[in-house]
C-alpha cells in the first residue's frame, strides 16, 4: 500500500543561466507558469504554495501578491538547497491531509548577475547568528567548509583527488548533451586536477557553477493527476534530517543523508539495486561522494572506488547520476541545487531526458538534496519516485 497518494505532476527548469534584466520575482513567476503549463494546469488552480529563503520579501506573501492568487495552504520550510526536495514531501502530505489539492513549489535566484557567491553570504553572517563569532573570523568560505570534509575523508579512508575528479568527469559527460548547461565541455580527470586549488583538497572544477535561474514543481491530488496530460509520478519514500556540529563533537565523515536516506528507503520498501537513476546533490564533488555512501549505495569509505572509472555515467556505470550535468556543470540557481535535482529525476521517469543520457525504461529514481554546509550544519532530504504501475 502506498503511503502517499498525491502525485508529482509538473516540473519546469528555467533555461536561463544569466538573467541580469529580470527581477527575482519575475523569475519565480516564469518558472511557476512553466510548471503549471507542464502539468496542463493554470496558476489559478494552485491552492497550495511552497517556497524557501530564495523567495523575495516576505516569501509567500510577496510572491502570491505578485501572482495575485490566494492559496489556502503555504509552507516555507527553509533547509537551504534541500528545501525543495523536502517541499515535495510536505506538499504530498498536505494534499493527502486535505489541506490543498494542487501545490506549487518555486525556486529562483540571480547570484551570477548579482555577483553573490554562497561564500559572500557565508562570510557576512548577521550578528544574531549564534555561531557567527566562532566561525566567521576564520574565513569559512563555502568551498573551505566542504574541503574540511574532503580532507578528513581522505585521511580516514584514503580517498583521492583523482576519485573526486571522476564525479566532475561524469557530470560533464552528461552536460555536453544539455544545450542550457553553463559548462558543456566534457572534462578529464587531469583537467580537474590541473584546475586551480580553491580550498585544498578541492580544485576549481570540484565546485559547482554559480548561475541565475530557477525551477518549479507541481504536486497534485491523485484524482486530479489522473486527468492531466502527462502521467503523474508516485512518491514512494521521503526522508528528512539535519546534522550539525553536535556542540563541538562534530564528525565530518558522514552527512545527514545517512538518516534521511534510511527513512526514504524504509518507507518505500525499495532496495538500492532497484534505483535506476539518482539525482545526487552536487555542490562539490565531495558532496556526491559522501552522499553515495550515506544513502547506502556503497559502504562508508568506499565512495572513492565506487565513483572511479565512470560509474556515475549514464549508459556506462552502475548508478547514472545528474544526467542534466547537475550543479557541477549545468545549473545551481540561487546557490541551491535541490530543485533541479527533482526536475531531472522527473525527466528521467517520463523518458524526457536527452536520448544520449536517458536511462532505458527508467521506473524508479532517487533524489537527494543537501542544504547549508556539510562542514558545519546542514539539512538533507531524500525522495524515492516512481512511475505509475
Amino acid at each position, binding site marked *: 500500500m502506498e503511503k502517499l497518494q498525491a502525485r508529482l505532476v509538473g516540473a519546469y527548469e528555467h533555461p536561463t543561466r544569466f538573467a541580469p534584466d529580470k527581477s527575482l520575482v519575475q523569475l519565480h513567476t516564469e518558472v511557476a507558469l512553466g510548471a503549471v503549463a507542464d502539468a496542463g494546469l493554470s496558476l489559478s488552480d494552485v491552492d497550495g504554495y511552497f517556497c524557501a529563503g530564495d523567495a523575495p520579501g516576505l516569501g509567500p506573501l510577496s510572491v502570491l501578491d505578485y501572482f495575485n492568487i490566494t492559496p489556502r495552504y503555504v509552507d516555507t520550510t527553509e533547509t537551504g538547497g534541500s528545501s525543495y526536495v523536502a517541499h515535495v514531501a510536505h506538499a504530498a502530505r498536505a494534499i493527502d491531509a486535505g489541506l490543498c489539492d494542487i501545490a506549487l513549489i518555486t525556486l529562483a535566484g540571480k547570484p551570477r548577475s548579482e555577483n553573490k557567491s554562497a561564500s559572500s553570504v557565508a562570510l557576512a553572517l548577521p550578528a544574531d547568528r549564534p555561531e557567527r563569532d566562532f566561525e566567521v573570523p576564520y574565513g569559512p568560505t563555502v568551498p573551505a567548509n566542504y574541503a*574540511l570534509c574532503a580532507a578528513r575523508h581522505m585521511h580516514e579512508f584514503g580517498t583521492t583527488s583523482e576519485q573526486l575528479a571522476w564525479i566532475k568527469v561524469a557530470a560533464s559527460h552528461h552536460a555536453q548533451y544539455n544545450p542550457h548547461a553553463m559548462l558543456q565541455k566534457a572534462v578529464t580527470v587531469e583537467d580537474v586536477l590541473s584546475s586551480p586549488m580553491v580550498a585544498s583538497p578541492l580544485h576549481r572544477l570540484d565546485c559547482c557553477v554559480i548561475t541565475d535561474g530557477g525551477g518549479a514543481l507541481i504536486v497534485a491530488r491523485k484524482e486530479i493527476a489522473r486527468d492531466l496530460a502527462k502521467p503523474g509520478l508516485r512518491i514512494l519514500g521521503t526522508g528528512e534530517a539535519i546534522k550539525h556540529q553536535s556542540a*563541538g563533537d562534530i564528525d565530518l565523515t558522514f552527512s545527514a543523508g545517512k538518516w534521511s536516506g534510511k527513512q526514504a528507503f524504509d518507507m518505500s520498501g525499495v532496495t538500492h539495486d532497484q534505483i535506476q537513476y539518482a539525482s545526487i546533490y552536487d555542490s562539490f564533488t565531495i558532496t556526491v561522494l559522501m552522499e553515495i555512501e550515506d544513502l547506502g549505495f556503497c559502504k562508508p569509505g568506499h565512495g572513492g572506488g565506487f565513483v572511479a572509472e565512470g560509474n556515475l555515467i549514464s549508459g556506462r556505470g552502475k548508478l547514472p547520476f545528474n544526467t542534466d550535468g547537475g550543479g557541477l556543470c549545468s545549473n545551481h540557481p540561487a546557490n541551491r541545487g535541490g530543485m533541479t535535482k527533482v526536475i531531472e529525476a522527473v525527466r528521467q521517469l517520463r523518458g524526457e531526458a536527452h536520448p544520449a543520457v536517458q536511462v532505458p525504461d527508467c521506473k524508479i529514481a532517487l533524489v537527494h538534496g543537501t542544504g547549508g554546509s556539510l562542514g558545519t550544519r546542514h539539512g538533507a532530504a531524500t525522495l524515492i519516485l516512481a512511475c505509475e504501475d
Partner: protein
Amino acid sequence: MSTTREYIHPEISPEARPFWDAANEGKLVIHTCRDCGRGHHYPRAMCPHCYSADLEWKETDGHGEIYSFSVVTAGKDLPRYVIAYVEIADRVKAMTNIVDCDPDSLRIGQRVKAVFRRSKTGQNILLFSPLESL
C-alpha cells in the same frame, strides 16, 4: 608561510563574554557542565548535552590536535590561509585558523597550541600554531 589575516570584530554575545575576556588574557577556556562533566563549544547558556544551567569555565593548557584543515586561496593577490577544526578537549572541536606555519607541511593529527591575535577592535581571537614551531 601563512600570513596574517585581518580578523573581523566579534559581536560577543552576553553568554560568551567570559570566553572572550579569557582570550584577552591569553587563555583558552571551555564551557563545561558541572552536572554531566562534558565541555562544549561554541559556548552556550545551557549545557547542550544534559541541558543543565550549572556551567563553569575550565581553563585548558591550550594544546590541541588538528582534526581537519584546508588551505584556502582567498583571491589572486591575497595570502592563503588555513582553516581547521582543532580538537581542544575530549569530544570538543573548534573551528579556527592555523597560523605561523608552512601550510603545505601541515597534517591531520598534528599537535598544535593556542595562540592569539588581535582583531581590528583589539579583541583577542583564538588561533592555533604547530607545537614544534613555538
